[in-house]
Each structure stands twice: as C-alpha cells, then as structure tokens.
C-alpha cells in the first residue's frame, strides 16, 4: 500500500495557547472588580458615612484600634452590621451560584444550562413558603432557611430518582426531569400562595422566587463560606475528570473516567451548594448561566482555570448587582433576582448569538 503520510509539521508557533497570561490577567481584573464592588457597597446607602469613618469602623471592629467615640452608633450599625455582611453575602452567593452553574453545565453537558434547570429553586420556594403559611417554625428564626434547604434537597432527590435510569443520569433525562419537577413545584407554590391570600405571604414568596440579600447578618456568613470552600476544593480535585465529561461518556470512559459515577458526585455537590445559596438568598437567577459562560469566553473550558475565574466573577457580579438593586429605584429596593434577570436576559441572548456565530464560523 502506498504510504500517503501527511507532510512534516509546519513550524510550530509555540505549542501552548497563551491561556496562562489571560488567566492571570482575568484573576487580577476580577479580584479588582470584587474589591472595588465591596468597597462601594459599604460606602453607598441612605445613611451617609464618610469613607474615612467607614474605614475606621471596620478597622476598629477587626483589630480594636481606634476611637469608637468618633462615629455614631447608627453609623456603626449601618456599616458593620448591615452593609458589610450584606456585601460579603452577595460575594459568597454570587461565587456559589457561578460555581454550581459551571458544574451544572458539565453535569448536563450543555453550556446553556444553569443550576435551576435541576428544579432546586422551586423546591426551596415550596419549603420556605410552607413554613411561612403554616406558621410552623420549630427552629425559630432560621426555620424558613432550613425549610428552603430541605425543599431544595427534596426536589433534588426527586429529580435524581427520575433521571437515574440505568444509573447513568443521562444529561437529557436530567434536564427533562428537572423541568418536570420545576413545573410541578411552581404549581404547588402558586397553590399555597392562593390558599394563604394575604400580602405577607405573597411578599415572602416573592423573596424566595426573586432573591434578596436584605436578611444578611454575620451569623449567616459562616455556612455558605464553608460550603463554598468545601465544594470548590472537591470540584477542583475533579477538574480533569470534569473536562473529559464535556466530550461525552464514551470519551470519558476511554480516559479512565466513569461518567455515571462522576455525575452522581457532581449532582450531590451541586445540590448542596445551590441548596445553601438559595436558602440564604432565594432564587437569584441567571448568575449560574451567564457567569460561567462569560468565564469560558475569557479562559476557555478547562475547569482548573474556569472554576476559580467563575467564582471570582460571580462574586463581583452579584456585589455590583446588589448595589444596583439597592440604589436604582431609591428609596425602594429591588429584589436582586430582578436585576440579574433584567441584565441577564439580554446578555444571554448576546451570548447565544455570538456562540452561534462562533460555531458556524459566520
């Protein structure tokens, strides 16, 4: 047989893509945005507190240095007990939702998916609304949060059971099961609200559906921080296997990654992370879709780079969105989910458009 070998390789232009530099730049810029966002978030608001005073209040609380007589009690409360924990919660929830969005897109092998396609948000809503309406609050003030988390996990269990045919959690079955559960639970939520028929309930339902950071306090920060750190480490440990999942189950298997087992781990991590974030901040939409997508445009699909960049970007994005939510229609406050959706929908369309152009080469 005549050998028709391809010619010798043309002069290489350096074998490795310039991802390292881009990633470093992305880290620097996104960290900068996050820090500026946090600072702005602490400085802006109805009660005017001069920047110098804000800095002194924070330094005094952190280190004990300074003169607490130099500012008023209300200034202290606003900066230390309201604005700072709220800004930090925004950062944690934004990072958490962006990370779980990144993982969900690998889980269902679809770059246009987000954690909410798995039905977790409405599960949380049903849990929280049930507590609000029945007035059964065995755990006092944290009951709605706990109920929301349990609701999210309940929805997760149902979706998991529905999608588990043959133990493989096939991507399409996951999405379809998530959709079915979401529709069912949204029906239940509407029913509960109609039954209750009072403005307080409606308000609290809106909170769970659109998201809010208004309930932030220091005590509420430890759990999401710990869960975010733990899931981030677990995901980074699986970063290479996650990459192979993008190429399909056959390819993953040929590279030594049993896709079905990895998907079960992944689904659990996503449920935990999303459940905690939704229980704390309600259904803040679109971050889990937009941020991973934008991060991919910046640094590519390799999860070793993608996960940290998505976390930073999500944190910065939600901090900025929360500032907008607090100040845009001042003195009225918008739910953050409304702002993310208003910004998110056009961004999403733009991403779909550029994606279509990229893949078809037009």
């Amino acid at each position, binding site marked *: *047989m005549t*050998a*028709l*070998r*391809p*010619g*010798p*390789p*043309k*002069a*290489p*232009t350096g*074998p*490795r*893509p310039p991802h390292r530099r881009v990633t470093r730049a992305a880290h620097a810029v996104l960290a900068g945005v996050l820090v500026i966002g946090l600072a702005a978030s602490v400085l802006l608001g109805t009660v005017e507190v001069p920047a110098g005073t804000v800095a002194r209040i924070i330094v005094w609380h952190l280190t004990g240095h300074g003169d607490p007589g130099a500012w008023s009690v209300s200034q202290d409360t606003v900066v230390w007990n309201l604005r700072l924990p709220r800004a930090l919660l925004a950062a944690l929830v934004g990072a958490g939702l962006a990370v779980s969005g990144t993982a969900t*897109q690998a889980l269902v*092998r*679809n*770059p246009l998916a987000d954690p909410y396609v798995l039905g977790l948000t409405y599960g949380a809503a049903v849990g929280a609304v049930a507590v609000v309406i029945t007035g059964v609050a065995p755990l006092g003030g944290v009951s709605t949060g706990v109920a929301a988390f349990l609701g999210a996990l309940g929805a997760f269990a149902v979706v998991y059971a529905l999608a588990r045919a*043959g133990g493989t959690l096939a991507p399409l079955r996951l999405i379809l099961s998530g959709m079915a559960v979401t529709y069912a639970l949204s029906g239940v939520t509407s029913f509960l609200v109609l039954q209750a028929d009072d403005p307080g309930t409606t308000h609290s339902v809106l909170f769970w559906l659109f998201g809010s950071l208004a309930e932030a306090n220091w005590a509420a920060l430890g759990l999401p921080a710990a869960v975010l750190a733990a899931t981030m480490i677990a995901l*980074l*440990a*699986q970063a*290479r*296997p996650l*990459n*192979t999942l*993008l*190429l*399909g*189950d*056959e*390819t993953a*298997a*040929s*590279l*030594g*990654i*049993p896709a079905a087992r990895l998907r079960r781990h992944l689904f659990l991590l996503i449920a935990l992370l999303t459940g905690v974030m939704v229980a704390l901040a309600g259904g803040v939409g679109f971050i889990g879709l937009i941020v991973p997508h934008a991060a*991919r445009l910046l640094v*590519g*699909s*390799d999860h070793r780079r993608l996960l940290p960049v998505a976390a930073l970007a999500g944190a910065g994005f939600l901090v900025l969105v929360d500032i907008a939510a607090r100040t845009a229609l001042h003195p009225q406050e918008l739910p953050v989910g409304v702002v993310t959706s208003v910004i998110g929908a056009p961004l999403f369309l733009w991403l779909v458009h550029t994606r279509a152009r*990229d*893949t078809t*080469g037009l």
Partner: protein
Amino acid sequence: MITVTNLDLHDVHVTIAGTPVVTGVDLTVPSGRRVGIIGPNGSGKSTLLRAVYRHLPLARGRITVGGEDLWRLTPRRAAQLVAALPQETRADFDVTVWEMAAMGRTPHKRPFAPDTAEDTAVVTDALVHAGVLQLAHRRYTTLSGGEKQRVLLARALAQQAPILVLDEPTNHLDVRHQFELLDLVSSTGTTVVAALHDLNLAAAYCDHLYVLAEGRVVAHGPPHDILTPRLVREVFGVDAHVTRVPDADVPHLILRPQDGAGP
C-alpha cells in the same frame, strides 16, 4: 516510551438493557499487530470495542492486556493500558486542539497534579506525530473532519497506552484522509484493534480480520482468507469479485448488489 503488548478477549458477553448484543467473543491481538473487526450494522462491533475501553461492562468473560485483567483494574489504570477513538466525540463546549490532545494525560494525573514539562513534551510529540501541531491554538470545532480525527488520534497517543482501540475511525472522511489516518495509525507501531466498515481499507491495513455477525465471531484469519466471495455474500449480503491491489499482496473487493441486480 510506549511498551507494546497483546490484547486478549475470552468468551466476552455484553448485554445492553437486558438484550445480549455480544455473545461469546474470543479475540486475540498479538503485540504490535493490527486487527480489524468487520461485520454488518448491528453485528456488535462497537459494543465489543466499548467493553474494551470500559464504557460498557462485561456480562461475562474476560479481557486481558499483557495478561492483566482489564476489568479488575481501576478505571485510571485501565486507561493507561487502553486508549480509544470512540465513534462520537461531543463538541458542545469550546476546547482548543492543545486542550483536546492534552486530555490524553488524564489517566496519568492524580487530583490537583499540575501539568509537568513531561506532559507538555508528550502532548507536543503526539501532535507532531499526528501532523497537527500547527493547529494547536485552533478551536476543535472549527477543524475539518480529517483534522479532527488526527487531533483525536493525538489525544490517544498522548495517553501512551500500549493498546489502541479505533471505532470506525474513517467515518465521514474522504478517501485521501482515510488513507492518511490509517497510515498514521500504522506508523505508531502500537497494538491496534479497529472496527472498520470499508472492507478494502480493512484488507489493506489489518494483519488479521475478525468477522462479526449477530454478536458472534463467524470467521477470522488473514484478509485474503477472509474476504472471499462466499463469506461476503453470507455475511454482508452482497456479491463480491476479489482482485488484488497492484504491487501489494492485498485483496481488493469489487462489490455489487446480490444476484446481479443494479447497474
């Protein structure tokens, strides 16, 4: 350096959703040889190969690589021994050519292990060997069919496994690229088992052919013993006239519909 070793299948059974698809296949690929699996659609070729690269579990039987029982190893260790070009590679996400080839290093890496200079060297070599180093920065989705298959071959080479499994590697390729790809595979010197649709390509590139029908091996042997008019008629249901490739001891089939129908 890739060591060369042999692949053996003993009484392999594979069942999909309760239906036996492969029923009792014995197959041997000696070190450094290329074995082709031919057979009509639905004969179980892909299913058999999927069990070799551990996508589908065995219902019964044993697969060994150099004497090691493949299904008793960890998935990671198994993937150090068997690399594959599966039939379908999803490309819903943007992955560069370099990243695609570098995924071949996956079974060699533990959690959190960074890419080393050795990884870079192995991936570069694989891309050079497959003739696609100049495409390293390109996005995989923007490549032509022939380029894609060569990149996937580079990924398999970067895996440094002694056994290479190819499932219909020449599908969707034009004639020249079919030859190019199989020449590349031959030049690696690894032990190869490949499912092939094109009987003439199978004859030209394989040392030994196994004919699969309804999940069983119905014949095996060197190409000129296997590709006879009688067997082709019985297994594939077409009439064949056998000739020879000029200047090579390779059979070549001229095919036409059974009983002289058609042109």
